Structures are given as structure tokens and as C-alpha cells.
């Protein structure tokens, strides 16, 4: 294939493959420029119609040239750096996810600045330089690998040197300042409230992180994002060889690539004349400039200009071979060409501005939407607000940068001197043409990537749709990978044409983040695998791991579930652990329970208001179980309350609710009862807690704490003592969650492992996990908040009237107990269930029905099984359940439908073991 690289263009060769064929490009190429250099014209088949498609643009606005390579499912050839060995395959609209894992690393960084400049073209560079000169902290971000924005595309000179050179020098100078950060290859893709912007930096496969998300909080923002050239809808405008004029110019100037040999230029404005000049200089033959206006721009001598003409047809199946042009009063002419360059004018890149909440305004002069009013602290400069001259962009950028710095509180420092630029020719006003009218619109494409034609748009308007949002959804125009960067406004214009409404009235569809597609893993960043969500561990964790405990996730905590011995499954291990506690002694790591230190003269009063029962009557040295409700009367949390002193309590909460209960307390204290003199402090992790349970626990404790009188009279149930255990300062509480004689030993978390090892060192204590704890408490009918309750359960439902004070005038939740629904007799009560077959384990979550045969659905349910276990001590399985009117059903037989079976169960008290409480004293 012929090389279309400009003679004399230097570059280190890079080999690559495309669709199974080998090619060579040069370093600095994109895949697109390299393909064009190799004369490859057709790079994709269109998604729905299968029409051949070529490269249409030169940067992120490209609609056609989508490829996949390696693990990357979809990328634009126009933004893809050519790297040695790149092996890319063209796509037909849809990407393919790879089964290969993505082994790259991703991360994020927070950044702050006084002025964020987006875009490092002439406007952005001038803005950044002006702002940085004042001493403001500046970040300048640009999505391209090379500085200068469109300067390398246009090869204009700035300050007497080539634009790209000027840009590189300016950016390097900026980067050398201590308070300026230059981010290249960085796309700002989202603009959120309070000047929070997010950007993705493409750092490359060799960097520590392949891509990085920048989370930028800027006091002021300057958007200098440039403009996109506008396409025109005409018959056959999707043929390979049709290309935006400015993009062709970019391929020539940036990459030394000629996208064709002989070109027709179709334009509504002057900018394409400059493109034609550059391409001619590079060696492309300009067959004609077809200008829709009646007055020509400044064409190079000898170039034919057809004013008042439009393109009405494109010849060639696989790519442009000729272009038919028509003009009023002229005969149609077919001009031979392999390249058709299009310029319908320029659309300021208002995406980020619009995301910022800025309103767009239609500008009749440029025929485009430009920034209007906005509430955030943002300036728009250069082509992004419709300034289309180089000198104008430099000036506009410098002024915007200075204003932004000043608004951020920085006075003029070293002023930025606007560099000289060559005098520009006075421009002829542009015409605004979106659509070349025709009888048949079947090949007038508005969205190349979704194969949407003018005919499709007209079908939509014909069906009654009048909003561009409807047309977008009916036709799918603007919804593809390129998000309608080129097709969006064009679609609106065509709708306007069809309905006879001005474009200004129709507006655009909504601009949304991300401005360019961003990888899932890029956004996930470091929060993956083990770092996905913090793992919380107790100070005994390593021991549990060493003893082979599987862990249960409880919130973010890892809790040991059970400790299987060789050959044991879970059931065997749990039965053994239960047996040990009921007959001997076991120990559990209870450190995850929430612990809150509540101090102050009004602490007792405060707890009286939060708990359903009375806490102020608790004696120093004693412990009381308590329940908290939400104002709606439903159980929120439970735990023990220890009175440490007249004005000091230690409250324990469930593992999952520790933070919520502390927040709850602070909320009431700060917002309702600020006069109460109370301070609450979390001490959850200050303490390690070892629960010692079983008839043998007293002896074990006595052995470890020789200074402590452990007999029942000296150390009664529901009291606590400060003492030394295993030589460690400890607080021992005599409480029980198993019904057995039991103690909870609390030590400073640093000493937790030492305590645990001392306990285990006695040789008589069996470690047990959360599962055994659950079985033991269930045998005693102690509910677990969140398991036996679900946010719809009151203390009375749990059979805990005794925990609800009748004496207190009020506490949180009390009023709700008097509502109609909360006093219904058929509310669901917590009861016990004994299956008729003592070997039958009911699944937790199973439901209960009244009859032994199941009627047709819907079958009213009486309630459900909340907890269900095998019990060694009961010699049977058993369950806890919430059952409608359950307390009035003692002894009744109910049924649990399981598959085709109805399993009979008997309703019993929820306290199945030792209802007299005979065991708690040992």
C-alpha cells in the first residue's frame, strides 16, 4: 500500500497490526494517523447497516474508528497512541469484554487549587500563565499528549516560533513553578457542584498506576476547551474519505499524514480555506472548494472555488471516488476526488460548562450554542466561548486567567505578556448550513456511530415528537461511545428543519459526565479486593486465624464463626462448643460489641430518656440490660449498661450498631437536650472483651484472678469488679448471654491477646465462635436485634414488657406504643417452635401457616422463623419465630411449608432452656 506520509517526515518506526495485517507507523502517531499513513481508508463497518466507514475526525470526537485491543473492549483509534506491537481489531458498534483479567493498577488523588485551567491550547496556556503569575495555585489539565491544543494542528506561529514550540516552552515554564501542576493526557470529565471536578490521567502501562483519577476542588475554573468542527448532513456523508477539514489539517500538520491525494472541500466558513492551504502545501491536490456562501474566502491562488454550491452526492462504494456538487443556476458537476473535507463551522465545547450548571445561549453570529449565565465560579475562554482567532484566544485566555486569580484573592504579580501572532485575514461571515436538502434522506447521516439518518429524525418528528430529547431516544442519535460530540447539535438542527422551528428554541440534549468514556476499574481505583471495604479486626484476630476459625462478616468486622477441629464440620464443631459451655467452660472474643462511655451529672437522666427501662435507679457497681427504640416504637438496639459512678456509665451496643448508637446519643444531646450535662465517648476499641461462660467459669476466673472474691454472694449476677486478671488490669462483669454462669473480662486492647492466651493456657477452656453464641442465647430466648427483629418489632412483641418502664413519663418510642397498630392483639410475637420431628432443622426465614393443607396462593402467613438451630442440650432442633398472636398460641400446632411438604411444629415459649434461670449462678 502506498505511504501517505509526507516526504521527509522523520520518526522512529513502530510496528503494529490492524485487523490481522501488519503495518508500520512512527512514534507520535495515533493508531488513526498510522492507518491513514498506510492508506487504510475503511476502518469499520457501521453498526446497523454494515456500511463501510473511515476515519472522520482526529481526536475524541471521532465517531467511526472504534477498535478493541488486548483487554480493552472499545477505544477510539484517533486517541490511541501507537505503541510497538499494538494489535487492534475494528469494531462494529459493540465492544467485547475480555476474559483476561486486567492486571493494571489504578488510583486517585485529591488536589486543590486556586485556579484550574482546562485545556492547554492558546487560550488555556495564556490563562494558566496569567493566573500563575499572580502566585495563585494553578492546575492546568489537557487531554492531549502534546501541549498547544489545536496549535500543532494548525501550525500557526506564536511569538515568532511554531505554535507547538511556544506551547511546549510555556507549559514547561509553568510546570517549573512550585505552585503549578501540569496534567497532560488528562481529560477533565466531570464538573460537579461547588467547583468539584474529576479528571482521568492516562499515565500508561508502565506507570505505577495505569490511570489515575484526579479529584480537584478549585476555587476558580477557566474552561479553555476549544471547539469541535461541525459536520453537515448530505447524501453519502458517511463514505470513507469524508473527513472534517480541520481534522485533515491536523493529520497533515501533526503527523505528516495526507488523508487523501485529491480533495474537495465543502465549507460554510473560512476555516476550511486555511485547511485547504495547509493540505495543498503538504501535497494534497485541492480539486475545488465548495462554499455554500455567495462570497468566497481567501483561497490559495489557482484553487477553484464554487460559491453558492453544496455537495449533493458522493460517488464510490468503498470510499469517496467522486463528489457531485450543485448550485442554483449551475449544472451539477461530478468532481473526481478521494477525499471530501467538510466544515460546517465550529461548535464551542460547552460540555463542562453545561455540566457546571451553566445555561447555553444560541449565538446567531456563529450559529452555535455558547456559554450563557452560570452560578459557579467559572470562566470560559477562547474557542470554547466562540472566539475563533488565535490572537483573540490568547487575549481572551490571559484575561480570564487574570480575572480568575483575582477572584481567588490574588492581585496582579508578573503580568503575562501576550505573544505576537501573525496578522489574520479579515474573515467573511460564516453561513449556517446543517443539511443539504434532498428528496430522499436515507443516506444523510446525522449520527454515524448509531447509523441515524435525517430520514430517521424525520420519521420521529412525523410520529408527533417535538422535543429533541424524544428524538434522541426514538432514533438513538447521540447515545453512542462519542456521546454525540459531532451529532448532537446537528440532530437538533435537523429537528428544527423538520418542524420549521429555530434551533435556538429547540436547544440541545443534556450534557452529562463523563465527557469521555472512563474505565470501570479506573473509577474503582484502589478500592478493590481486600481494600474494597475496610476489614475490621479485634486484637485477638491473629489467634483466631491461627486456630483455623472461619470468619463471619458482621458489618465490616471479621468475627470467628466456630473453631473446627480436625475432621469436624460446622455442625459437629458447634455442638461440641455448645456442650463445652453448658457442661464446662468456653470463651469467646466479644471485643466487637460497641462500648460508649457516658459521663456527666445528667448521664442517668439522659439514659432514662433513651432506654425503655429505668437506668437512673441502677446502683454503682451494678449492671442492667436495656433496650432502645426509635420514636416509632420499634426496637433499635439493646445491650448492657454498667454504672461506673454516680455520673458515669458504660453502655454496650450490638456490634453492628455501635456507630449508630453513638450518633443517636449525640443527636439527641446536641439537638434536643443541649442542657443535659453529658459527654459520650466511644471506647469500643480501647477494650478487648473475653466472654467466659459455663459452670466452670468461676473456677477459671478464680485461678486467673486470685485477688477477686468470685463466690456468688461476693460477686453477684449483674455486677462488675475492677481487678487483675492474669496480671492485667481488668474489669470483670458478671453477665450472661448463654444462661450459664458467665463473666465478661475487659482489658486494654493491647493486653487482649495476653488475656486470651492466659485463659486458653488454663487448658480447660474451649474457644467458641459466634454460631455457638447464637445457639446458646436462642435456647434461652434472648433475641438478637436485626435477626429476631426487623425494624417492625416492639419490645412487647418480643415478650419484653418487663423492659418497658411504666413509671417514666416518657422515653423515646413510648408514645408509639399507644398507636392503633402497635396495640393490635394479633401482632407478631416472639415464640419458640419445636418441630414434631426433633431431627428436623427448619430453615431460618421459613414461614408459618395455620392449616395442614396448603390452599391456593395467596396464602396468608402467620409469621416466620427468625432463628433455628440444633440443640445438644434440648436433644432436638428448635426455632424462634415471630408469629401473629403467638403468645396466645402456646401449644398450638402450626405448619411450615417447605417445598411440597408441610412440616408440623408446636408453639412454645421462646425460652426453651432453664426458664427458671437456675444455671446463671453456677
Amino acid at each position, binding site marked *: 500500500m502506498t505511504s501517505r506520509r509526507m516526504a521527509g517526515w522523520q520518526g522512529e518506526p513502530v510496528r503494529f497490526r490492524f485487523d490481522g495485517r501488519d503495518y508500520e507507523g512512527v512514534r507520535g502517531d495515533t493508531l488513526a494517523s498510522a492507518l491513514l499513513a498506510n492508506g487504510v481508508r475503511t476502518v469499520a463497518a457501521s453498526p446497523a447497516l454494515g456500511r463501510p466507514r473511515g476515519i472522520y475526525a482526529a481526536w475524541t470526537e471521532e465517531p467511526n474508528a472504534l477498535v478493541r485491543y488486548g483487554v480493552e473492549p472499545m477505544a477510539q483509534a484517533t486517541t490511541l497512541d501507537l505503541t510497538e506491537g499494538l494489535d487492534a481489531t475494528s469494531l462494529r458498534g459493540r465492544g467485547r469484554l475480555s476474559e483476561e483479567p486486567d492486571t493494571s493498577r489504578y488510583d486517585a488523588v485529591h488536589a486543590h487549587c486556586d485556579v484550574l485551567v482546562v485545556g492547554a491550547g492558546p487560550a488555556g496556556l495564556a490563562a494558566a500563565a496569567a493566573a500563575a503569575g499572580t502566585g495563585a495555585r494553578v492546575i492546568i489539565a489537557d487531554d492531549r499528549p502534546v501541549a498547544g491544543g489545536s496549535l500543532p494542528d494548525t501550525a500557526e506561529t506564536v511569538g515568532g516560533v511554531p505554535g507547538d514550540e511556544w506551547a511546549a516552552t510555556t507549559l514547561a515554564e509553568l510546570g517549573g513553578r512550585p505552585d503549578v501542576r501540569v496534567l497532560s493526557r488528562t481529560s477533565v470529565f466531570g464538573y460537579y*457542584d461547588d467547583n468539584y471536578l474529576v479528571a482521568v490521567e492516562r499515565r500508561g502501562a508502565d506507570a505505577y498506576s495505569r490511570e489515575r483519577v484526579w*479529584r480537584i476542588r478549585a476555587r476558580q475554573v477557566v474552561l479553555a476547551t476549544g471547539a469541535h468542527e461541525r459536520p453537515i448532513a448530505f447524501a453519502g456523508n458517511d463514505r470513507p474519505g469524508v473527513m472534517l477539514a480541520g481534522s485533515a489539517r491536523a493529520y497533515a500538520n501533526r503527523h505528516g499524514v495526507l488523508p487523501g491525494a485529491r480533495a474537495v472541500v465543502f465549507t460554510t466558513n473560512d476555516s476550511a480555506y486555511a485547511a485547504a492551504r495547509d493540505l495543498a502545501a503538504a501535497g494534497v491536490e485541492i480539486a475545488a472548494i465548495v462554499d455554500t456562501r455567495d462570497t468566497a474566502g481567501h483561497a490559495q491562488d489557482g484553487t477553484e472555488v464554487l460559491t453558492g454550491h453544496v455537495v449533493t452526492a458522493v460517488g464510490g462504494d468503498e470510499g469517496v471516488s467522486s463528489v457531485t456538487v450543485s448550485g442554483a443556476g449551475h449544472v451539477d458537476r461530478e468532481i473526481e476526488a478521494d477525499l471530501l473535507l467538510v466544515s460546517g463551522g465550529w461548535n464551542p465545547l460547552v460540555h463542562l460548562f453545561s455540566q457546571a450548571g451553566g445555561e447555553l445561549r444560541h449565538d446567531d453570529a456563529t450559529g452555535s450554542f455558547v456559554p450563557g449565565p452560570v452560578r459557579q465560579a467559572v470562566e470560559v475562554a477562547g474557542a470554547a466561548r466562540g472566539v475563533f482567532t488565535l490572537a483573540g484566544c490568547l487575549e481572551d485566555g490571559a484575561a480570564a486567567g487574570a480575572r480568575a486569580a483575582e477572584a481567588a484573592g490574588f492581585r496582579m504579580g508578573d503580568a503575562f505578556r501576550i505573544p505576537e501572532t501573525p496578522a489574520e485575514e479579515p474573515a467573511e461571515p460564516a453561513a449556517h448550513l446543517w443539511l443539504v436538502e434532498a428528496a430522499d434522506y436515507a443516506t444523510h447521516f446525522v449520527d454515524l456511530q448509531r447509523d441515524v439518518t435525517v430520514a430517521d429524525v424525520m420519521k420521529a418528528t412525523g410520529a408527533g415528537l417535538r422535543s429533541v430529547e424524544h428524538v434522541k431516544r426514538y432514533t438513538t442519535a447521540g447515545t453512542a461511545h462519542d456521546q454525540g460530540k459531532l451529532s448532537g447539535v446537528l440532530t437538533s438542527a435537523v429537528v428544527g428543519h423538520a418542524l420549521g422551528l429555530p434551533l435556538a428554541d429547540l436547544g440541545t440534549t443534556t450534557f452529562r459526565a463523563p465527557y469521555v468514556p472512563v474505565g470501570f476499574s479506573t473509577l474503582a481505583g484502589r478500592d478493590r479486593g481486600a481494600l474494597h471495604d475496610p476489614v475490621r479486626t479485634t486484637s485477638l484476630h491473629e489467634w483466631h486465624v491461627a486456630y483455623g476459625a472461619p470468619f463471619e462478616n458482621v458489618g465490616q468486622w471479621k468475627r470467628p464463626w466456630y473453631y473446627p477441629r480436625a475432621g469436624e464440620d460446622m455442625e459437629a464443631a458447634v455442638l461440641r462448643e455448645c456442650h463445652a459451655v453448658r457442661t464446662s467452660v468456653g470463651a469467646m472474643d466479644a471485643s466487637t460489641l460497641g462500648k460508649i462511655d457516658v459521663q456527666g451529672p445528667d448521664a442517668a437522666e439522659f439514659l432514662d430518656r433513651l432506654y425503655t427501662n429505668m437506668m437512673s435507679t441502677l446502683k454503682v457497681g451494678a449492671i442492667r440490660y436495656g433496650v432502645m427504640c426509635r420514636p416509632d416504637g420499634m426496637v433499635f438496639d439493646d445491650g448492657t449498661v454498667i454504672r461506673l459512678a454516680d455520673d458515669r456509665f458504660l453502655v454496650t451496643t450490638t456490634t453492628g450498631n455501635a456507630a449508630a448508637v453513638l450518633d443517636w446519643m449525640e*443527636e439527641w444531646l446536641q*439537638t434536643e437536650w443541649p442542657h443535659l450535662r453529658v459527654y459520650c465517648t466511644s471506647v469500643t476499641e480501647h477494650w478487648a472483651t473475653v466472654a467466659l461462660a459455663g459452670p466452670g467459669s468461676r473456677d477459671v476466673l478464680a485461678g486467673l484472678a486470685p485477688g477477686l472474691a468470685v463466690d456468688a454472694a461476693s460477686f453477684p449476677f449483674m455486677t462488675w469488679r475492677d481487678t487483675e486478671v492474669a496480671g492485667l488490669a481488668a474489669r470483670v462483669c458478671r453477665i450472661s448471654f448463654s444462661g450459664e454462669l458467665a463473666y465478661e473480662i475487659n482489658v486494654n486492647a493491647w493486653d487482649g491477646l495476653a488475656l486470651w492466651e492466659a485463659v486458653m493456657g488454663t487448658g480447660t477452656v474451649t474457644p467458641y465462635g459466634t454460631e455457638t453464641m447464637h445457639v446458646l442465647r436462642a435456647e434461652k430466648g434472648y433475641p438478637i436485634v436485626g435477626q429476631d427483629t426487623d425494624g417492625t418489632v416492639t419490645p412487647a412483641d418480643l415478650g419484653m414488657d418487663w423492659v418497658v418502664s411504666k413509671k417514666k*413519663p416518657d422515653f423515646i418510642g413510648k*408514645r408509639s406504643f399507644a*398507636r*392503633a397498630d402497635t396495640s393490635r392483639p394479633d401482632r407478631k410475637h416472639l415464640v419458640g417452635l419445636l418441630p414434631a420431628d426433633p431431627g428436623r432443622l427448619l430453615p431460618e426465614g421459613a414461614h408459618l401457616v395455620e392449616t395442614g393443607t396448603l390452599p391456593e396462593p395467596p396464602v396468608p402467613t402467620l409469621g416466620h422463623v427468625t432463628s433455628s438451630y440444633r440443640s445438644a442440650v434440648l436433644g432436638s432442633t428448635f426455632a424462634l419465630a415471630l408469629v401473629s398472636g403467638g403468645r396466645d398460641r402456646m401449644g398450638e400446632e402450626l405448619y411450615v411449608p417447605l417445598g411440597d411438604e408441610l412440616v408440623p411444629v408446636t408453639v412454645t415459649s421462646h425460652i426453651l432452656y432453664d426458664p427458671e434461670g437456675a444455671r446463671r449462678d453456677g
Partner: protein
Amino acid sequence: MLLIPCPWCGPRDEAEFHYGGQAHVAYPENPAALSDEEWARYLFFRDNPEGRFAERWNHTAGCRRWFNAVRNTATNEIEAREVIA
């Protein structure tokens, strides 16, 4: 990511705060004296305007203080804030 002005710590990212809904909804003086309707109103009914809204925030990841703010729910702009004393 809103930038929420904690009266104590200064502006911080939204992720550090817990939202507390409408401000100035006092716990009733004497709940027992309320009708079911009035109690339901306290429990479940809160203003939900499109526009200025007085609301509560807690700086949970910072100083743990509750404060009130007036935010425009149509623009998310915070117009004022006050310390709860």
C-alpha cells in the same frame, strides 16, 4: 461532592457528613398529649420544598457537631448555616 461549611472545621467534603433532614422539628413537649395524627406528623412528615430548605447536618467524620444550614434544593447551594447552641 458538595463542599459543606462546618461551622467549626470549615468547608469539608460532603462525604464527611451525615444528613439530618429538616431542621427545627422539635421533639414534642409532651408526646402523650398528642393525638395519633399529631404524633404521626412528628414521626413521618417533613417539609420537602424545591428551593430554600433549613436542614440539619452532622460532621460525623470531623468534629461530630450538629449544625443547621439553609440550602437551596434546586441548586444545592448552601446559603447560610448556624451553630446549634
